[in-house]
């Protein structure tokens, strides 16, 4: 399954890129598993997710929980709590 990943703010800096396209194995079916798979890739993801906590996840531009199922060509964004206004 192909996914488009986006990173923002402190997490974008820690990972060193703002977006990437990834092919995930069939075992990765929800958002929590996707994050675990990224961390298992090693650095910079492993260090970034260890350093930046908590991290929110948006699936197709809607903030969603770890159990939310993924679908092909989804846009998944990872970011720290928001600080606008």
């Amino acid at each position, binding site marked *: 399954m192909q996914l488009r990943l*986006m990173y*923002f*703010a*402190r997490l*974008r800096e820690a990972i060193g890129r703002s977006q990437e396209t990834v092919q995930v194995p069939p075992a990765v079916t929800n958002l929590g598993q996707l994050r675990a798979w990224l961390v298992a890739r090693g650095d910079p993801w492993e260090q970034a997710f260890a350093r930046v906590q908590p991290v929110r996840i*948006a699936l197709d*531009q*809607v*903030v969603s929980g770890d159990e939310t199922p993924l679908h092909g060509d989804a846009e998944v*964004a990872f*970011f*720290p*709590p*928001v*600080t*606008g*206004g």
Partner: protein
Amino acid sequence: MAEGAPAAVLVRVQEADFDPGREIEALRGRSTGAVVSFVGIAREFSDAFAVERITLEHYPGMTERCLEDIGRRALARWNLLAVHIIHRHGELLPGDRIVLVATASTHRDAAFEACRYVVDFLKTEAPFWKREAGQGGARWVEAKQSDDQARERWRDPSAPG
């Protein structure tokens, strides 16, 4: 706003500054009884950190969608004529305007309450991140627990509003 126009949510996310007077005037009309506005401004001091400039990062697409959703929820909750939200991104200096929320209604209570509701949810849901830079270096602004508490107030059915 035009007479008889349907209740509307207007969202603009832009680098450019805005003119609060003009935006508020745009909501005046023969059936408008009240316009309430909030203008958020970049502060010179954040805790003890002297801020020289601020960079506001956002998530294009999700930002607009999120602000429109908050505006629509306000329309569903109060009897409003309009909700206008303008939020800037990019490079800002202390004293610069960051955000405008303006609500219009027939009677004042709806506009007052809805304006605060929109600001409280915008602070905790809209995907913006502030980075402050000054003599002491640069740092990402931390999310405040008090902002979460301000939002939670609206979830309590016994709370006013």
